């Protein structure tokens, strides 16, 4: 079992994420149609397809280059709010990972944490605002604490995946306070947040790749 994740691993992660958002395109869009503008699934599928077009064939050899390309591609191709949010996430992720060809657990955790901070800076979201933050923040917290308690990278990422899924599920009763869903007020309650749902997929993809 690997203790690090390489450029190939990162590329596999992105591909697994692409597969999830593509397969769940209709589902994500349906979630978004309940509380938003019904474009999250198609936006993410389009964005990740563009990402894989760019990096699938000839991936840059370092993490910072790879994720800069990913971030910029998402920024220019997603269109909706997830463009700058995921774009910022991956840009910050790459900047923190640096000019390296692989990351160990703490480096991965630090890069993810930087990505989260980028998302917070961009979206100004806080816990329980019914956003992707509600899945991402608990996932990275779980990753940190698992690594701190000496868990393997695979176990730690699995814990992050489970925390992201729990965070996603916890968005259902929340009333949205950010983005277009916030215009719905109380009517936004009773639906999963599409951003939190796709974030959970991101961690599910990561866990799958690390476990492989």
């Amino acid at each position, binding site marked *: 079992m690997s203790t690090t994740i390489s450029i190939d691993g990162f590329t596999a992660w992105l591909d697994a994420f692409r597969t999830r958002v593509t397969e769940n395109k209709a589902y994500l869009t349906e979630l978004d149609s309940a509380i938003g503008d019904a474009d999250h699934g198609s936006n993410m599928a389009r964005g990740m397809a563009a990402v894989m077009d760019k990096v699938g064939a000839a991936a840059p050899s370092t993490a910072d280059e790879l994720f800069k390309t990913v971030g910029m591609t998402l*920024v*220019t191709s997603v*269109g*909706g*709010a997830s463009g700058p949010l995921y774009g910022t996430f991956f840009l910050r992720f790459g900047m923190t990972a640096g000019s390296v060809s692989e990351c160990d657990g703490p480096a991965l955790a630090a890069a993810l944490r930087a990505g989260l901070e980028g998302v917070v800076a961009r979206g100004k979201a806080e816990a329980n605002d019914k956003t992707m933050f509600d899945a991402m923040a608990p996932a990275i917290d779980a990753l940190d604490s698992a690594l701190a308690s000496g868990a393997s990278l695979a176990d730690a990422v699995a814990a992050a995946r489970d925390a992201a899924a729990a965070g996603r599920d916890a968005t259902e009763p929340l009333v949205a306070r950010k983005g277009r869903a916030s215009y719905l007020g109380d009517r936004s309650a009773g639906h999963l947040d599409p951003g939190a749902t796709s974030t959970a997929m991101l961690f599910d993809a990561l866990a799958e790749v690390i476990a492989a």
Partner: protein
Amino acid sequence: MTSVGVVAVSHSPALAEAAIALALEMTATGAPAVIAAAGTADGEIGTDAARIAEAIAEADSGDGVAVIMDLGSAVMSAELALEFVDPNLAERTRLVAAPFVEGLLAAVVRAAGGASLAEVAEEATGALRPKTDHLQSPTPDQDAAGAASAADEPPAPSDASSATATVRNVAGLHARPAAVIAGAVASFDAEVTLLRDDHAQRPPVSAASPIGIATLAAGPGTVVLIRATGPQAAEAVEHVRALIDEGFGEEPAEGQAPTGAAAPAPARVDPTPTGPIGVSSGRVVGPAVVLRRTVREPSASDRVPEDARDGAVSLLREASIRVAERYRERAASVTGQRRTVLEATADMATDPTLVGGVEALIRDGGLTPTRAAWQVSAELAEQYRAAGGLIAERATDLLDVRNRLIAELRGEEPPGVPDRREPFILVADDLAPADTVALDPAVCLALITEQGGPTSHTAIIARELGLPAVVGYPEATSIADGDLLLVDGDTGEVVVRPDPAAQATATGVITLPPFEGPGQTRDGHRVLLGANVGAPRDVARAVERGAEGVGLFRTEFCFLDRDTEPSIDEQVGAYREVFDGFAGQRVVVRTLDAGSDKPLPFLTNDDEPNPALGVRGLRTARRHPDVLERQVQAIARAAEGATADVWVMAPMVATAAEARDFVTLARGAGLATVGVMIETPAAGLTAVEVMREVDFVSLGTNDLAQYTMAADRQSGDLADLANPWQPALLRLIGMIGEASRDTSGTPVGVCGEAAADPDLACVLVGLGVTSLSMAARAITRVGARLGDVELVACRRAAEAAVSAADPAEAKAAARAALG
């Protein structure tokens, strides 16, 4: 000069493009760099931070960039974009928290004026203010605070300068003129502020701020106070004053010609009038008098306690004496029959039978003085009517006494059009022609009504009398008697209890010098320009305005507002008064035009389903030929010995047979020149046959338009149809003009409102009309216009107007042809 760039970030490329186009329309000079960053790279709806970063770099010329975004991801993408651009550029880029369209306009306009990045950003951030101000009226507290701060203003520094200017252009100080002003003041070393004269309690706005200027919401006619401090204060003030006064080269509002010589406004065509509409020019200040139709019936159950009854009786006696005094004052101000009647009515107010009867009901029954007066006068009026004859006629006077007595006891204005010698502004639900018989334009300053549109009676009456008027003013009648009002008949503005600064903006009714005849085209084609006269009191004004006689003398004033027909003697006296005013000139008398909107109790049936198509005008003679016979006799007697050339005509004629009957009647009475009005399409279509019966015809274009277009002229909703520029109406008039030529030149007059529109007057002349009669105040303008064009141009204008598709096109084509 600094040159700030602007970036428009939107999800939608179409929205960004349209908003930028809108904003660039507002820039008078040197548009700034405005770059759109909208949509995703593949043209989808969305935002793209990389594209925004490129746009920022493109827009920047070293002085910074203001970024205006729509919503959601646009904001996040723009923030992200700042991470992509050069840090120095990011430093001089502002993401502005502004509404997209308003903010973009404000930023572009301000950037075009050479403002700094901070100024551009501030302007855009405040861009929602005009809309907010417009949709939320300020709370009284805010007003009070504003007033306090205005009062605490320090004295003006020595390099201060100020002036006032009146907004002339039809759209007012909207965004483009605001941008022009802001651009202009930027070139002076001065701090310039603007303030509406009628909003003196509000803080002034900076003339460098287009948004600030827009918050003034200054429409045409608004007086704007321009103040400046600084070394170039005087130059800046003069420059701004000239800009505003010259109307920015835009279309001037009706009655707001940029020359400063404002002219009376013809009927505005507003297909959907909502809210107050100014319908007759002028800006005046005066106390309100609210027109009441009736006196409320006093309560029958109220009782005066025994110990208060002496006091109540004293109140009654005092009131009756005051009412009598008022009647005597009015009697002293008139002559002849009216004086005698008013003196007799004054005696009635203190008559022992009336006052004694009322006293008895107060003392014995404990009735209130108002209720007692109500009951006693009701009983007396009943006795008068039962007596019949001349006594019965006094019942109306008695009820007038009753109304005035009750109003006096209540401290109210008596019902009906107030008879005042002090100037006032008449406030009413709506005005009927009958109301205006007693309206003296020398003391009535302006009219305000709740009802009515641009073509309503109030509007027509107001223009006729030359009074500023606002119609459609909601809850006008809830204005209190005596409240000071500022009324602007151009803008529709009404200010209740205006402060002294606002009062000072009143400019009165602007008048032009009198017309100096003769009326003719530049090449000498003679067109008689007469005045419309509705009562003897109009004579002096018509003469003063230079009227060449009277093209329409309405005789209703003798008949309206009364229950019985006036005697022949009374009529002779009234007509003679008018004839004597126009020695040696033509006076065209129209016989009684009752019915429809001018009902008369002794002549017309008020339950017709379709009064405009019912028994009106000459048709009333079908049932009551004697009333017309007596009137024609009275006109003939008044004409005997008068030096005026008296012509007589009948209204509302539809057939040549009707015309023949009237001519027979009038000639039989000794009248030499007899004609008819053409107000029905039927008479117009058979004009040749009608003209063979008569000496002349006169077109009442208001009714002719209403019947031709089948559109009630009082309906504000149909004002576009009842428009006198309708090609259908003009063609019909052209047919009548041809009929005149076919009958060896039967004179064709026009006495409707159309004659008062200078361009339309020329068209009418081109269609063959030989005389025009209009409100006296319009004669100067019409005469000047006519004297400026040749007959051949009038004919070309007529041809162009009749072949136009609609009134607007007809007007434009005629204007073009007239040059």
